[in-house]
């Protein structure tokens, strides 16, 4: 399904990239602007479903998840939001803005050693976004941004993989793997790559331009 164009009235936009790549900032700017122009916008983010997100967060705190269970719990979260939020909003003609999408699972789970075909099949029910933007950053810049005042968290540093006892070093190795997976997906799924180190303004200009193009093709003028 991630390869087939959808036929919904609405438009699905997602942002991808590792932590600290600036994707949430860009999505927030886009959302505020779209709302100010009177568009019907809905926002949804990774691991936020009522059904499961608390369980996943709790299990992460206790460091008790195997890579496969980790993967399946995030799939539950995604499926719940897809069926309850994204799908109905697209049918009703909304612009749906997703902070992370199935590609996050493909990048992180595969970096954890889960088979890449397996996880792609698990997410077979996902809807192909009209626009998927990937914010490319190197692990070092990402770490400097998110770990300015705190150590990397257990799973975000991939500490479950026992790559290194030092969370900073582990973060560099693990996120390096995640980035490699993202880079593969640029061609595989047609993700649009932006340089995370560009200015906030120039990225926002680029995103709005791409969105306008998508909407124009659907007969919506901003």
């Amino acid at each position, binding site marked *: 399904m991630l390869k087939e164009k959808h036929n919904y009235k609405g438009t699905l936009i997602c942002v991808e990239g590792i932590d600290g790549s600036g994707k949430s900032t860009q999505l927030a700017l886009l959302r505020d602007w779209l709302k100010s122009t009177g568009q019907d916008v809905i926002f949804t983010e990774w691991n936020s479903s009522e059904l499961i997100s608390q369980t996943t967060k709790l299990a992460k705190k206790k460091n008790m998840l195997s890579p496969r269970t980790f993967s399946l719990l995030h799939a539950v979260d995604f499926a719940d939001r897809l069926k309850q939020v994204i799908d109905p909003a697209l049918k009703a003609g909304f612009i749906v803005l997703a902070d992370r999408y199935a590609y996050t699972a493909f990048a992180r789970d595969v970096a954890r050693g889960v088979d890449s075909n*397996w996880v792609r099949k698990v997410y077979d*029910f996902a809807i192909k976004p009209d626009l998927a933007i990937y914010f490319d950053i190197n692990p070092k810049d990402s770490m400097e941004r998110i770990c300015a005042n705190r150590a990397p968290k257990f799973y975000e540093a991939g500490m479950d993989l026992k790559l290194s006892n030092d969370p900073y070093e582990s973060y560099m190795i693990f996120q390096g793997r995640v980035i490699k997976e993202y880079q593969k997906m640029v061609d595989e799924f047609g993700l649009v790559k932006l340089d995370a180190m560009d200015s906030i303004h120039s990225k926002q200009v680029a995103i709005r331009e791409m969105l306008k193009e998508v909407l124009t093709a659907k007969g919506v003028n901003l």
Partner: protein
Amino acid sequence: MTAQFKTKHGYEGLLIVIEGTDGSGKSTQLELLKKSIQAQSYGVMVSEWKTSRLIANVIDDAKDRNLLNATTYSLLYAADFADRLENQIIPALKSGFIVLLDRYYYTALARDVVRGQDIEWVKNLYDYAPEPDLVFYLDMPVDVLLKRIIGTTGLDFYESGRDVGFSTDFYKSFEIYQKKCLEQYNNMKSEYHFKSIDGTLPINKIHSIMDEEVQEILSSGVLK
């Protein structure tokens, strides 16, 4: 001396599954089998469907609040299974236990497909699961099942497939749902080499059939 038995999964222990629909007598048989194996000084571990510490409560709670759609239903059970498999079942098999399972992923295949999921999609969710050494399937006609369940636990919303919308009448819905599950189990019998046992036989008779199969494997000396 029987020819050397080789486990199908490559671990040291044995993986034995009892499958069947609700009310087919699985738990009773599991308990009996556990006792007879224990009596011979083997290490036995039992694990039941939907009992992971992590996820079982979430499933129950979500069912209570009618929060599940067919996809989240499938994925939650798959997560429960993954958690139990990796934290309990595989470690036990590695250390040479006989693991007795009340239901295995065949249950998910039956229920999820009845809920409209693509069978290949569901198979993929469980494709990493080790192949059991023995799968007993308790075969029960739907009318006997209906009586058993109504006479014991009563009809449950999901076990009656009410979420699928076959019928708003509880009895009718249960009948349709269980029939469809039985069809799925029947389709799996040969593919997964079920040892099908007539579930209407007396409890002791069923037990001795199962025990004989287990003894045959044990007498090959696989766990010595």
